[in-house]
């Protein structure tokens, strides 16, 4: 059984302008010790998916209207808040995007780390402190014991993200959700933080969900990738499969927007951009959500008739498109023949 199974999750925001379908029928699962990457551009529901798993979506205006999040046999969506609090930080942890704002400026670093272990493991003050030093050393904060009583403003962005990682790992969770863990960091620090995450993931034998809009990050870290667009999964596959044989036009476009430094078939000249912007999640037409930006869609085919089903093109490779690459190639071959 998978560690985490998200089934048909619908998280909607009920706003004055209408219902925003931020997450609209998302299903995936994470195996123990594996890493799942969720990619997609801004506003496609990645973070809301993560927050829904944690039960941290702002209610109101948001509400999980349908679906379940099964974690070790418990449905987190239906778990009472008090029991959910025992899960958070203990069995599932989360790292947020901006380390500069995620630490309380009025509390010492040590206090913020010990808070978690004392809360969940009931350690004494001294034991918690010892554990905090150990954790800070693990995330490679130099002179950890001496820096424990510093306030967050004395830490740089990369160091703060390490502190966040230390806090997240403090109770050896089974699942770590990293919501754009490197977006707010310098490029040089990004690589360090990613390496650190991967190393600690192995050491703690955690499963990880890494959310990003950086294809480079998931290529490094993930075993399996979910591509989201407008609140839905549009493609899902093993990492190598996805990078080698992207099927969905959106995935292709995302990869086309990525700079390449080396390798066969290196593209030259400008990077391709994806024209247009994601659809308004309030007024969704009953059609393929990517159709307006898809270069293969046309008004008369199935793309305009309804939202395509997520179908399994190859074992383990799911696509939600009327024009996946392999069928397109096949179609072209037929025409030339």
């Amino acid at each position, binding site marked *: 059984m998978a560690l985490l199974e998200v089934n048909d999750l619908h998280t909607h925001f009920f706003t004055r302008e209408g219902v925003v379908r931020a997450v609209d029928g998302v299903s995936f699962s994470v195996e123990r010790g594996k890493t799942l990457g969720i990619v997609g551009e801004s506003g496609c529901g990645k973070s809301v998916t993560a927050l829904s798993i*944690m039960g*941290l979506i702002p209610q*109101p205006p948001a509400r999980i209207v349908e679906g379940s999040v099964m974690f070790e046999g418990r449905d987190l969506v239906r778990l009472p808040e008090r029991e959910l*609090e*025992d*899960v*958070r*930080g*203990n069995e599932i*942890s*989360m790292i*947020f995007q*901006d380390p500069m*704002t*995620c*630490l*309380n*400026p*009025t*509390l010492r670093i040590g206090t913020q780390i010990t*808070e*978690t272990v004392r*809360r*969940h493991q009931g350690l004494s003050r001294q034991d918690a402190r010892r554990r905090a030093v150990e954790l800070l050393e693990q995330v490679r*904060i*130099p*002179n*950890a014991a*001496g*820096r424990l009583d*510093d*306030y967050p403003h*004395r*830490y*740089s962005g990369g160091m703060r993200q390490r502190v*966040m990682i230390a*806090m*997240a790992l*403090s109770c050896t969770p089974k699942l770590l959700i990293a919501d754009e863990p490197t977006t707010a960091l310098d490029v040089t620090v990004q690589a360090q933080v990613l390496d650190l995450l991967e190393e600690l993931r192995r050491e703690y034998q955690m499963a990880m969900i890494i959310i990003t809009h950086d294809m480079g990050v998931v290529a490094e870290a993930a075993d399996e990738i979910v591509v989201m667009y407008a609140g839905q999964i549009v493609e899902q596959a093993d990492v190598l499969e996805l990078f080698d044989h992207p099927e969905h036009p959106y995935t292709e476009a995302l990869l086309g927007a990525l700079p390449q430094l080396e390798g066969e078939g290196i593209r030259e000249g400008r990077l391709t951009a994806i024209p247009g912007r994601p659809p308004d999640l309030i007024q969704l037409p009953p059609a393929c959500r990517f159709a307006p930006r898809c270069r293969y869609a046309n008004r008369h085919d199935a793309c305009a008739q309804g939202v395509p089903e997520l179908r399994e093109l190859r074992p383990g490779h799911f696509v939600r498109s009327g024009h996946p690459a392999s069928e397109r190639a096949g179609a072209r071959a037929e025409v030339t023949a």
Partner: protein
Amino acid sequence: MVVDPRQEQLRVEAIVDEERTFDAGTAAGAPVRQTNLWKDAWFRYIRNRGAVIAGAILLLVILYCIIWPFVSPYDPNAVTFADKNQGPGLSHPLGTDAFGRDLLTRTALGGRVSIGIGFVATLVILLIGIAYGSLAGFIGGKVDNGLMRFLDALYGLPYLPFAIITLAILGNASFWTMVIALSVASWFTTARIVRGQIITLKENDYVRAAKAVGARWYRILGRHLLPNTLGVLVIAIFLELPGVILGEAFLSFIGLGISPPDSSWGQMAEEGRRVYRIVPHVIAIPSIAIATLVLSANFVADGLRDALDPRTRET
């Protein structure tokens, strides 16, 4: 623009300090000279001359009220008709009142009551305001809306008449009934300030991060939100204090508050009012004392606001 060389020096030192901190912080976690919000605030505060003077006066007045009755050669309640209605002179620096009591000693004693009521009532105001405001802001939604509309209705209550009615209901006027009367209708602003702070603070990422590690609501409120409102609360203390002291003085002056033989500044002013045509200093002294206290508290509040909230500080 004329630059005060001393201030310029301070600024340069501050910049150098910052750089030093930064270098050391990023290098290898070398021991860095500790500094914190309160130390920074202190340095900003002592650069504000008006606030420093006001703070010193406030402290002196408080110390005088506490200490003088012990060292004074006169019994503040000893009636000596031979010495009545004396002007300021050598034996009685501030003169005597209609009963021949030494005013320097009596003013200190009255100050104890006035300032005591002032601080205690301010504390009560803060406690009620924090509890009400933080709950409204933290829970939010309909509860917040309900609590705030109720507060709006309470806002319609005029402060002093409400205090008078409270005193009438409680019957006798003592230290504690005065505290209740003065705080019962004046915690509204503090509640609003705290609510506003909590509402902005609870949107912070670190609150979400705390939730993500399983922190319960009381921990988030008590540990993550309220300490962040401390700066505002310190300012609120010195903003509420003058109002409360004036209120106490007013109530005692019209005869509803502290009554003889106990004294407060308001009650002393009331005694002075009866004889002000003959001996004007008897009303002047407590009035000056009240004015000094209120003014310096206002200046201190001003200085604290600049010191604790650098964003509003003029550069």
